[in-house]
């Protein structure tokens, strides 16, 4: 018992922070979601009004949810494919491979705010790098962030920029695959594709599973890039859920409404996380 207390004493700074800044606000936000609250005056109980307005009286809520859902559906798999592909390439035994690994990893440690500002310039239709390159091939590039059809896809494209973080995890996963499996496969006559298909990918599924869960959670909380680069525009085409929630909270001072939005988001994320967990027994291999 005495031993336990010593342990708790050591972790007490973290526990205090967790209760004060995470657990208590988390629980208070449940109450706030049933109130109208503007930070300054006392919350006023409104029952289910926030949830009713969200579900039946706010088309922008559905727009934001749809856009975020589409982003999760496209950007997360795209990030996994790119990350795994890069990790496989960077797992080759080449001269100077550690330099290449560093180069591909570097973008993920650049602050996202700085990256976003740089991408605003890169994607500028008139003086941006992307359209300048396209012009070399006599292609007139789109207006990217200023075009309702392209703004969303610009953000999806940009999400691949920081794929280096997950790539490193895939790389660690690849290093963990026993060489004996490949040796046995080669003896059995398996080619590169078959080795990738039947050894590398199955053995990598625990890592893919982890990144999928984290990716989905991250995608539903996607905020910084649209906040800096598009502010939800043009014409609400990048009005992501977290951005709309932020605007409701801090621009319109609807903290109760924003709390209700946060709880709906929590339930949506939980639903998808549980769904992915439920399916994992079918496709995740732990090598037993």
């Amino acid at each position, binding site marked *: 018992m005495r031993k336990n207390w010593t342990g708790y004493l050591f972790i007490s700074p973290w526990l205090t922070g967790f209760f004060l800044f995470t657990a208590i606000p988390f629980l208070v936000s449940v109450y706030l979601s049933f109130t109208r609250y503007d930070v300054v005056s006392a919350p006023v109980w409104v029952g289910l009004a926030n949830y009713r307005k969200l579900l039946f009286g706010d088309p922008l809520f559905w727009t934001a949810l749809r856009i975020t859902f589409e982003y999760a559906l496209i950007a997360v798999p795209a990030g996994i494919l790119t990350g795994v592909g890069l990790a496989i390439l960077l797992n080759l035994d080449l001269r100077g491979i550690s330099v290449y690994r560093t180069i591909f990893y570097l973008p993920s440690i650049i602050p996202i705010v700085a990256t976003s500002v740089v991408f605003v310039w890169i994607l500028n239709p008139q003086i941006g790098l992307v359209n300048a390159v396209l012009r070399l091939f006599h292609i007139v590039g789109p*207006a990217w962030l200023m075009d309702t059809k392209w703004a969303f896809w610009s953000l999806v494209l940009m999400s691949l920029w920081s794929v280096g973080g997950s790539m490193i995890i895939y790389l660690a996963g690849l290093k963990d695959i026993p060489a004996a499996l490949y040796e046995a496969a080669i003896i059995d006559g398996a080619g590169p594709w078959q080795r990738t298909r039947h050894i590398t990918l199955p053995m990598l599924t625990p890592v893919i599973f982890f990144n999928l869960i984290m990716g989905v959670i991250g995608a539903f909380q996607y905020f910084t890039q649209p906040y800096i680069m598009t502010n939800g525009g043009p014409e609400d085409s990048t009005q992501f859920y977290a951005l709309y929630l932020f605007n409701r909270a801090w621009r319109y001072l609807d903290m109760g409404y924003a709390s209700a939005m946060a709880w709906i988001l929590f339930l949506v994320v939980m639903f998808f996380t549980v769904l992915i967990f439920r399916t994992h027994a079918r496709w995740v291999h732990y090598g037993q």
Partner: protein
Amino acid sequence: MANNAITPRFGKRVAAAWISTVLLAIGLTVVLALPGPPPRRHPQRIPVRMWHMWTAEWKEVVERIVARFNESQEVYEVLPLSVPMINADAKLLLAVAGGDPPDVMAQWNPVIPKWAESGLLQPLNNLMSPAEWEEFQRDAYPAVKKIGVYKGNLYGVTTGLNTFACYIRLDYLREAGLDLAQFPDSIEGLGAWGDKLRRVDAQGNIKRMGFMPIYFTYYAPAFGDGFYDWRTGRLQLKTPENLRALNFLADQRRELGFQNVVRFESGLQIGLGNMDWPFMTGAYAIMADGQWRVEQIARYAPTLEYATRPIPPPAGGRKHFGYTNGNFMIIPKGARQVQGAWEFIKFWSGLAQPERAAEFYTWGGWLPPLPAIANAPIYREYVRQHPQFQTFLDLLPSENLQPIPPVPFQVYLFDRITQADEAAVRGSLTPEEALDRLEQEIAREIESRKEFGYEN
């Protein structure tokens, strides 16, 4: 014995450890040597904490005004603090909620109705005598009252209005054979001038814009009452006049091709403090912009030949129209030195001594809230040196200068008007559909506010 020998590898590690330690020591020394906040010059006086959002050259102007106030005082010392613009509002809200707000804050965001409704602001007319309040209501320019007054109380005292007018490059007029004396008296005529002044390359890309009317909020008051009936206090969104205004903007954009304009504009720097303002760099022949550009041109392009004129109204429309906003001072709930804050507001705004305050308005190139300041000798001298400024001064008495309607959901309204504007000029919706959608969105918001127990 061989094990105890200093190997090259061990030597490298020791060297690396030493280098790291030295670098860390240098870094810590630099950080510790950085100067802290300047000591108070008048520690015996009552401190009045002021927040503002200006930076760079504007921050210097604010500090000059503060210094002048502190020199004039024996009781209070104003301590200015520039807070980052991007989260200044959130910072203030949290400061009020936490019980430690500044005593006074300079604002320019459309926050008064919502913050007043939430009880976040102190009514400033309570700090005036009845005679002073009456005088303010009588003398202040209409836009000052439209911005600062909510439900009969004054919550923000303007310390600088913004209005918008045409900046005209005389060299381009000469090149196109146009005469400033014949400046069009209708917006349609100005459109025709714009066509003559526009330059496009062989591929049809715009290289120089003649004139491009933008923003529904600017042009709605030219065609009718705008978005708000100031007499009855009712919103009016889908009116025939607003529809005409939006149709006009959409037609102008359609003529040039929306993508064409987007591409042209995206290559320009449009910032408040930029030296590469497109008018100065020659990307626009005629451009509607705010009065602060006069000061900027004087500073960064003193040889530029240009003139200013009010944006002409549409045929049968209203003169001297446009959107207006401004810098204004608020006193938040929980401020400790309300009287000190009020003294400072009166000092800067000119409510106390208009002639003295006139000088501050010339430092920032700001439009004053009171005719008494505009007529002060020092301000007249400034206008004599910058004759282009007179155009903006002439706009001030107009009732057709309108801010965003003072409703408690003002920011939401502004956002949805902007969306309607964007949808119409991009052609995603017809102007009529865009106004229908706007009206539905706002009706829904009003309805839900009733359900939430708000008064309006």
